[in-house]
Each structure stands twice: as C-alpha cells, then as structure tokens.
C-alpha cells in the first residue's frame, strides 16, 4: 500500500536514529573491534577478545561463539587480510542472524487491525505504545488505544496523558476492571463510534514466570479473536535493551502464552547493546520490529538489521 511505503527520507531517518542511539555503544565497546582488527595478525587472542566483546554486548555465549567461529572460518577460507574486510565480514555474519520478513500484517487491507502489546514490568510498554501510535498516525491511520493495564497504580492515567500528547483517543475503564472487558469495549468503540483502523492494546506488565497472569493474556487474545477476524494481528513483546540472558526466557514464555510475533526493543538509547536479540531471533524466530531510542514520542524507528549491526560495529552506511 502506497500509504505505508517509506520515503527514502524516512528510511534514512530511521537508520540515523538507530545508529545514533548506538553511538555510545560503539565508542564504549565496539570501537575496540576496529582496534582489534588493526593488529597485524589475527591470533587466537584476537578471536578470544572478539568473543569477549560480543558477550559484553549481551549476545550470550552460544551466539558469540558461533559468530566468531563462522567469521574465523570465513576469514581463513576467503583469505581475508584487510581490517575493513574482516569487519565487513563480521557485520555480514551478524546481519544474517537478523534477516526476517518485514511486518506487513498491519498494512493488509481490513477494517480494523489490532496490535497487542505485552512485556515484563518496567520494560517500557506504555511509552512504546505511545510511540507506535504516533508512528501509525503519521502514516495516516486512525489509531485508538486500549488501557488494559488495569492493575498497576496510575497506569491508566499514564496512557491517557500520552494519548492527549499525541492526539490519540484512549478507551479506558476504572482501575481494577477486567482487562478482557476493556479490550471488548475498546474493540466495539473502535469498530462503531470511532471508525478506527488500528487498535493498540496496552497490557499490565507481568513476569513471564507468573502462570496465571500469562493465562490472562490468552483470555485477552480470545476476546480479540471473537470480535475481529484473525485478531490480534500482531502481538509485540516490549524488551528492555538492558536485559541480559533472561530475555530469552521472557521471549520464550510470552511466545508460548501470547503467540508473540515480534519485538519492540526499548531503551536502545541507554549504553546497553540489546545484543540478546540475535539469540532471540535465532532460537525463537522472533524478529525485532521497532526500536525505541529515547523518551520523546518520535524517538522510534522501524528496525533495520543492517543499520543495527552497522551501528554496533561503527561502519558507515
């Protein structure tokens, strides 16, 4: 759909955001990769140090080892000598772990699309929802938000304030209301009076180990599916970029309970690297869809694997 095709400007802007947010990362850590490869000879220590750097970016041991091993074989096989070539090969290996189909389901023609947002406490769901709403609003969609986090104190007020700021309506009930009922109401309102095209549902933060709370997500999905064909059309897990290896467990449990279709990597403006997304995509097949790069509603971009990796490795686009 023409409406959603990105202009080259937008593309560049998105990439710039990802790269800029990773600037601190590369200065702090990945800048050293250059130095590493500038050494005259690639020794065992070089590879070990590279492995270290990747682990420090939260890639996890398995992924780090595999990437280094593949790179090492490739460098040997293709007789790569120059520093920039080694780096390019590394970028290539990392990017290959992130190749995934783009998120198109929301752009399919239908009257109402539904996105369900899930995640652990404090991962950045509400802020990400505001940004996502702004993102689609900019692309001409009529967006409505559902305040289905009825548990956390003032969560409803928080999303309402965001709604006002970005000019998007929020459907809410009183604190403590049944989240399923809020979803039901929100869908009805979206379909009838509001004529909305996209409904984004905020849910309460929950640790993935809490069985009953995870069950509740299933119930909310049921409410969606009964009212809108195939809904929710996307279920996005909001992941804090500072999260370590536990992110895999999070993704796994949320995928099982709520059939998550992708990730929003939040707080990428911190000094954390979000390297765990490589393992999540490889092990669970869950791609990153968007990245959050700051506290303003516009600090948000579609995920671009190449830009993400290049940002990490400090390679100009």
């Amino acid at each position, binding site marked *: 759909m023409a409406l959603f095709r990105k202009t080259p400007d937008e593309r560049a802007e998105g990439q710039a955001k990802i790269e800029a947010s990773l600037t*601190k990362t590369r200065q*702090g850590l990945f800048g050293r990769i250059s130095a590493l490869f500038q050494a005259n000879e690639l020794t065992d220590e070089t590879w070990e140090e590279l492995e*270290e750097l990747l*682990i*420090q*970016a*939260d890639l*996890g*041991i398995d992924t780090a080892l595999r990437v280094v091993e593949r790179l090492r074989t490739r460098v040997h096989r293709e007789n790569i000598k120059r520093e920039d070539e080694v780096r390019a090969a590394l970028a290539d290996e990392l990017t290959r772990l992130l190749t995934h189909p783009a998120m198109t389901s929301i752009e399919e023609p239908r009257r109402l699309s539904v996105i369900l947002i899930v995640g*652990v*406490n*404090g*991962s*950045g769901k509400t802020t990400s929802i505001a940004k996502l709403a702004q993102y689609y609003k900019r692309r001409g969609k009529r967006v409505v938000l559902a305040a289905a986090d009825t*548990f*956390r*104190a*003032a*969560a409803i*007020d*928080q999303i*309402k*304030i*965001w709604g006002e*700021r970005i000019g998007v309506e929020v459907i809410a009930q009183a*604190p403590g209301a049944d989240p399923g009922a809020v979803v039901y109401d929100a869908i009805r309102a979206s379909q009838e009076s509001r004529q909305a095209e996209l409904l984004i549902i905020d849910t309460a933060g929950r*640790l*993935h*180990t*809490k*069985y009953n709370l995870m069950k509740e997500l299933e119930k909310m999905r049921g409410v969606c599916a009964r009212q809108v064909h195939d809904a929710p059309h996307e279920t996005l897990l909001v992941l*804090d970029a*500072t*999260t*370590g*290896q*536990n*992110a895999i*467990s*999070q993704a796994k449990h949320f995928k099982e309970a709520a059939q998550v279709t992708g990730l929003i990597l939040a*707080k990428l*403006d*911190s*000094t*954390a*690297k979000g390297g*765990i997304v490589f393992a999540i995509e490889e092990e669970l097949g869950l791609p990153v869809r968007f990245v959050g790069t700051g*506290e303003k509603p516009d600090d948000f971009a579609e995920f671009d694997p190449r830009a993400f990796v290049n940002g990490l490795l400090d390679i100009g686009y």
Partner: protein
Amino acid sequence: MFESLQNKLKVVFEKLATRGRLTEQDVDAALREVRLALLEADVNYKVVKDLVGRVKERAVGVEVMKSLTPAQQVVKIVHEELLKTLGEPSRLNLSGPAPHVVMLVGLQGSGKTTTAAKLALNLRKGNKRALLVAADTYRPAAITQIEVLGKQIDIPVFSEGTQVPPPEITSHALRRAREGAYDVMIIDTAGRLQISEALMGELERIKALVKPQEILLVADAMTGQEAVNVAQGFHERVGLTGLILTKVDGDARGGAAISMREVTGVPIKFLGVGEKSDALEPFHPDRLASRILGMGDMLTLIERAGETMDRSDAERMGRKLVKGEFNLEDFLKQLQEIKKMGPLTQILEMIPGMGRLTQEMAPETTDKQLCTIEAIISSMTREERRNPRVLNGSRKRRVARGSGTTVQDINDLLDQFRQMQRMMKQLGSGGRGMRGLMDMLR
C-alpha cells in the same frame, strides 16, 4: 533452564577421574564450566574473569575433602567466592537524628516507585513513620502512581505536581518531614540513564540539598552485562550507599548483583519479590549465590511451602509420613496444597537438577495430571481413600465413571501411590533413607 553447574562439573571430573588433590588441569577444566555458568547468569565478563582467577588460585592443589567429590569441592570454593563478593546483608542506616533521608535512583523501569512504597511499608513494620516524596516530575502519571500506592498502604505522600523542579520538591519535603516528625523520608526520583548529564546533575543537586543518608540504586534482576556501567555511572556521580535488586520473583539468575557489588562495593540491602507492597525481602547472600550458580532455589521453595501450608497440618502430615500411615486422603490434601504454590513445573524448577526435567513437561499436561488425580481421589469413598486395598474391580469401575477416567488410570495412580508410600516409609525409618533422598537432590 540451566542444568545444575554441579552436574556439569561432575561430568568434567568423571572424564578426568581425579582423586586426591586438585591439579591445575582439573581446575582449568572445571573453571571453564564455572565461567559459562556465570556468564549465562549475566555476571559481567570482566567480573567473571577476576572471580575465576581468584577461584583458580584457591583451588589448585587443594586436597579434596573426604566427604566431597572433586566437583563439589570446586563448587564449594566458587560458592564461597561468590558469597564474599555478594557481601553481608545490610539494613538501612538510620543512625543519627530523624528525619533520615533515603533516595532511590536508577534506570527507567527498574522499579523505583514500587520499591519506595515497599520500603515505607517495611519501615512501618519497625514502627518508623515514613513520608514518600514524589520527585519524578517527568514520567507521565508517575506522581499519581505513588499517590495511589501511598493511599493503598496508608502512607502519606508529599508532592508538588510536575512544575516544581525536583531539588526544590525534596527540600520542601524535608521541611515537612521535620515538622511532621517523620522518621524517614523516601525520595522517588525519575528514572534516568547514568550518562544523562542533565539528569545526573539533578541528583547531585538533590543530594547537596537534603543530604540523604542512604542513596540506593534500584536495579532490575534481569539486567545484562550493562549492570556494571550503570552501577559505576551512578556510583561515581552520586555515591551509592546500597543496592536493591528488583523482580527477583522471575527466573532471572541475577548475576547483575555480583557485577554491581564488585564495581561499587556497597551492600545489597533488599530484594523485590513481587508486585504487592509487602513483597520486599531481606537479602540472603547464600540463596542468591546458589541461584546465580544455577543450583536451584530450595530455600525459596521451602519458604513458599511454609507460606501456603498450615504449620500444624504440615507437622501432622510429617508424623503420618514417618509412621507410614499416609493415605490417599492425605495425598489429596497435599496435592491441593501444592496447587496453591503455583504450577508444578515452576515448583520443580526450584529443585536442583529438576530444571531440565521441566523443559520436557508442558505446564498444561502436568497440571492437568494433577487435576485428573484429584478427580479420581475425589470420586472415592472415604473408606477407599483411607484403605485403597478395598478397591476391587467393581469399585474401580465406579470411580472411573465418577472421575471421567479409565480403570487403567486408577490402577496407574494406585501403583504410583504405593511406590510413594514405600519411599516415604524408607525415609521415615531414617538413616539410609534420608541420605538417599539427599543424594537424589544433589
């Protein structure tokens, strides 16, 4: 979940067939596994390196104690080093004249506001009056959040809206705390990145104005390698006095705690273990060390069992077990207790060595099995529950109909129950039995 480190080490040592002293070669092989376990637990790379170095220094040449296997010997040393790094539990420093000022700082979403409320409630249990101070003027509805929490637990909240700069809010709050003769005032600050110049400057100004006795970094137990930089960043700018680890009720191994302790040297004061305002626990270095090493969390399990089970019930059950009088009625009761503790897979994960088992079990199936067992026993008469031997073919068919199962299901259950009874009797007779169970748990 992860296989217990000890099991992995056992494999390593079986290959080496070590006896007597630990050689450098043994230790190196073992430490590779230790290193992996720590990295999997999100302990920072550099911290792991140092720690592994220290363990190696201590372990090489050590005589393996008679009562331990080489694997256990190495784990013991690692455990001791972890304990040393984690440090002693420490309480809030409330010395000197009141009001004492406690400031909570940390990244966005680490759990500061929830923790502030928990601390206030915790203080009240010790007969201290706390005043919560809403100094997060940035995040939408942060002030409403702390006000709502304050109301829920009946703790006063000082707030001046979002227009007054946080340093001013806190100094006004201090005046109020003095006038109101509060014992402690707890400042909830906005989440911020340790690299944000402006916001870190704000913390420095608050510190200069109200001179907090405690500046506590609130950090998410799920934090990865970055924990080192975060802790260091905050420590350098504002001088931390302690750490609070939050969301410990999840399944994160919590290696971040080691990293943060190592770079700051300040004590861990509390752990956040749930969303409710009373879910704040004192820090037990021993438990956290075991958890980081992936050795299960028996203590938490035992504690949870204690929470849900009636003590006198448990004691009566224990006596019955020992005497071998445990019947299906008691079994049903136990099942119901276990169900209260959470899904079975979650419970099993806390038992050392069982983590792997749970991977193969879908939570639904195991919990469904529990339901089936419950249904079967519920369909029995009291006499049948107390004395399953009376269950003949006709009775079994009736029970099967009543519970929607088959006679085969009932036979399976009775078989399992008899096995369990035998095991229990063995345990009850003490000596070998008990040791047998301990070996199983190792």
